[in-house]
């Protein structure tokens, strides 16, 4: 009889660790849900922190603008370049603008924007709030009779939810411009023809779906960054963990949401 497991107690130890991880996972899920509900309870009840929302929108936009411009342009150029050989095999290079527009507007623009914003904005929110938690600035707001959740969390989540769709639209146009440069260089297509071919296959559902996707991504990035920072543990290590956790969790959720939204919008096409 193999008594190894019962003798050294490794299996029960692993089992209890696994149980603990499961418990922690569901506890985190519960806490995130509570956090989201609190956001909806507080965000739309006066007094509003409009000035801070506008300031945060500016911060989110400025923080990501350069990186999004460069990445969007490169995505447009590369995607067009990589798609050409496949279409050439069937003599269908003229479909390139349509293919590029569908790919960029339906999927790439919101996804690329969300991933970049997760890194730039999500980590920054996580670190900023984490640092405020560690240095007791959030406690100081609380004991002075103000509402730190409203001032710090609601404003940032609203800012990402409002700004990321705008950034995503911008990314789409920059990527299309990158695609146009590649197409016009190879096929000599004019700007007018390119634009006509770009918008021809796109439907109203595509624009709405893309917009909804960006709103959901923006909300996710904001809420995850704020959750990680607002609940960060004491110490500088906690700040690092909050920033890191904000990026990883937001990116993971963005991919899952992408899959779900693509499935749902597929039913309406």
């Amino acid at each position, binding site marked *: 009889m193999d008594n190894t497991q019962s003798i050294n107690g490794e299996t029960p130890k692993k089992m209890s660790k696994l149980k603990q991880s499961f418990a922690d996972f569901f506890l985190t899920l519960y806490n995130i849900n509570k956090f989201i509900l609190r956001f909806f309870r507080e965000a739309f009840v006066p*007094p509003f922190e409009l000035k801070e929302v506008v300031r945060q929108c500016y911060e989110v936009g400025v923080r990501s603008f350069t990186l999004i411009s460069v990445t969007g342009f490169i995505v447009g150029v590369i995607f067009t370049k990589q798609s050409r050989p496949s279409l050439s095999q069937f003599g269908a290079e003229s479909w390139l603008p349509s293919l590029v527009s569908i790919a960029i507007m339906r999927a790439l623009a919101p996804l690329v924007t969300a991933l970049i914003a997760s890194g730039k904005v999500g980590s920054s929110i996580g670190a900023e709030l984490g640092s*405020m938690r560690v*240095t*007791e*600035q959030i*406690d*100081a*707001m*609380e*004991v*002075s*009779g*103000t*509402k730190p959740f409203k*001032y710090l969390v609601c404003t940032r989540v609203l800012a990402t939810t409002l700004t990321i769709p705008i950034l995503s639209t911008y990314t789409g146009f920059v990527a299309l411009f990158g695609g146009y440069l590649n197409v016009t260089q190879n096929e000599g297509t004019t700007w007018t023809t390119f634009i006509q071919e770009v918008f021809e296959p796109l439907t109203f559902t595509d624009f709405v779906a893309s917009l909804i996707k960006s709103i959901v991504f923006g909300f996710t990035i904001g809420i995850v960054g704020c959750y990680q920072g607002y609940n960060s543990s004491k110490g500088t290590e906690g700040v690092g963990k909050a920033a890191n956790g904000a990026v990883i969790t937001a990116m993971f959720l963005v991919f899952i949401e992408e899959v779900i939204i693509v499935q749902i919008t597929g039913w309406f096409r």
Partner: protein
Amino acid sequence: MKKAAIQADHSNPVISIRGLKKAFQDYSVLRGIDLDLYQGENLVVLGRSGTGKSVLIKIISGLLKPDAGQVEVLGYNIATISEDELQALRIRIGFSFQNSALYDSMTVRKNLEFPLVRNRRNLTRGEINTNVEAVLDAVGLSQTINQMPSELSGGQRKRIGIARTLILNPEIMLYDEPTAGLDPITCIEINDLINEVQQRYNTSSIIITHDLTCAKQTGDRIAMLLDGQFQRTGTFEEVFATEDERVKPFYDYNFIK
């Protein structure tokens, strides 16, 4: 500066604590504390690091929830109070943090305005400026109004932290280690400021410290927290008139015996 004699109103406790218990996981920090803070007095809570002094004032301000016991602040039971009532109560309590907890993305002016504009929404710009200038003047730091917290010294940060609490005219002040990490001269200045606040704003205060000079200069009454309970309470002289080995080293270390 020698502390001016203040007559505390012993018939009127502004904070009344009975049987307060608080534990973190298996470690019991506060083990059934009884305490009264009377109107107009400075009460110093002394104790070793990790004995739950800061936990006590965090419970009083509603930042932590007690496990058991009753904590009554200005007539409200902290354990059963609603969120809105707690927020209204907090305006009447000033909390000076150990590391000052200034909002480091805001100037001194914005730090002071932050609680004011959110709690007194009907104030005009002129009234806000007057209030800010008045508290800055009270802590003697008018010249720092447009500076960022990172540009201030430790002592200045403490003073601005105190000014930020004073701007709401609190009835109770809670000081968490007000002299920690400061040089002796700045410590004396902070002690003087604590006494000045008591006289000028007629506050009742709890001062958490293990600095006996601070305790002697600011305290009307001292309460010594040992093993999760207040073992000795009285004037400075009464508390240290003992051969208790848990108390004596405090005095000997601070006054280099």
